[in-house]
């Protein structure tokens, strides 16, 4: 029980509040704040359960994509805001930083492998969210709101 709390529940709560912090910068009001926060927490949970690999990031982005599509159908709002904010905790800021550190220190091998890992993460996020929302639209075309 203890480990579940420290390993999973606490990080998800942090991801939730971090996303709520981002909603203030993107001018999201009302219920949208809650949805974006829950999306971020969900994405981070999937990422943790998947073992924090590139594939886990892919799964997390897919989960966020589906969640955001469902929420945008429920609220009849553009999906943009929810995906945007919920994906932010997964964006590899650490990768950019460590690549820079290795680059400055002249460790070319470590620099290149960190850089490639960063690109891999970014690509996994993009492809994951893209596939999930395309698949969602293909499977449930009837739920599609009048497209605008």
């Amino acid at each position, binding site marked *: 029980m203890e480990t579940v709390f420290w390993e999973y529940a606490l990080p998800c709560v942090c*991801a939730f509040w971090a996303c709520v912090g981002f909603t203030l910068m993107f001018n*999201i009001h009302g219920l949208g704040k809650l949805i974006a926060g829950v999306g971020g927490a969900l994405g981070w949970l999937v990422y943790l359960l998947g073992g924090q690999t590139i594939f886990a990031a892919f799964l997390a982005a897919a989960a966020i994509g589906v969640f955001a599509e469902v929420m945008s159908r429920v609220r009849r709002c553009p999906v*943009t805001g929810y995906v945007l904010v919920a994906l*932010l905790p997964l964006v590899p*800021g650490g990768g950019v*930083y460590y690549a*820079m550190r290795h680059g400055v220190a002249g460790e070319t091998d470590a620099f290149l492998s960190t850089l490639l890992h960063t690109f891999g993460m970014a690509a996994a996020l993009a492809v994951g969210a893209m596939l999930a929302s395309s698949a969602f639209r293909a499977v449930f075309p009837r739920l599609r709101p009048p*497209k*605008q």
Partner: protein
Amino acid sequence: MDYEKLLNMAAELGYQLMYSGAEIYRVEESARRLLHAYGLESPEVFAIPNCLIVSVATPAGQPVTRMRRVPLHGTDIELLERCNGLCRRLCAEVPPLDEAQALVNALPDAIPRYSPRMMLLGYGTAPAFFAPLFGGGLGDLACAFLCGLAVGLCLLYGGKFIGANSFFRTAVCSALAAFLSLALVEAGLGESVDVVTISTLMVLVPGVALTNAMREIMAGDTFSALSRTADAILVASAIALGAAAGQALGGLF
């Protein structure tokens, strides 16, 4: 019907949508549907991230074109949702042009916005809660909050001094974040420079550009997708450059 007025109204709505950070396909589709709802057969709308062109041929065969240059802008989801809602409403109700123009013009002023103080709180909160995610303790959380506030201040009020160039702005903010986290950790407040710096850099990371680039690819707007990807890579290099400069500066003391 006054096609020039119609064109102005559609271009203004498209401009507002672009300005709120909407995807290209949403802007094009909205303007096209709007013009269609007002009875035009084949309106042409073309948008790339900083330019919007709307062109129609009146039933008499007269071509009319309007182009809008979209300046550097952030992301404003509330504006996006309201533009989207208004566009749906206009397409369904088709009110007289003057009324529709008044509705579109009233959009940007009617948007609720957070006060600068709340925005600052956001800039502080987000990095603060990232610190535990990256393995930091309570001290790191406090450090990240302070560094986030500093970056927020720099972004909100420093525009006059560091200009509107996003590459330079990101580099300056990133240098500030790296320098401050080094200083705060040295002062004994935090434990890990890496954790605090990364947490703070997360507010600068080009997540929005990346997500938008992917959505453009999905919609088939390759040109816009490429330009947004380039933007994301540029911002990421600005972060790396700035952080390197900040740490080098911190190392001098």
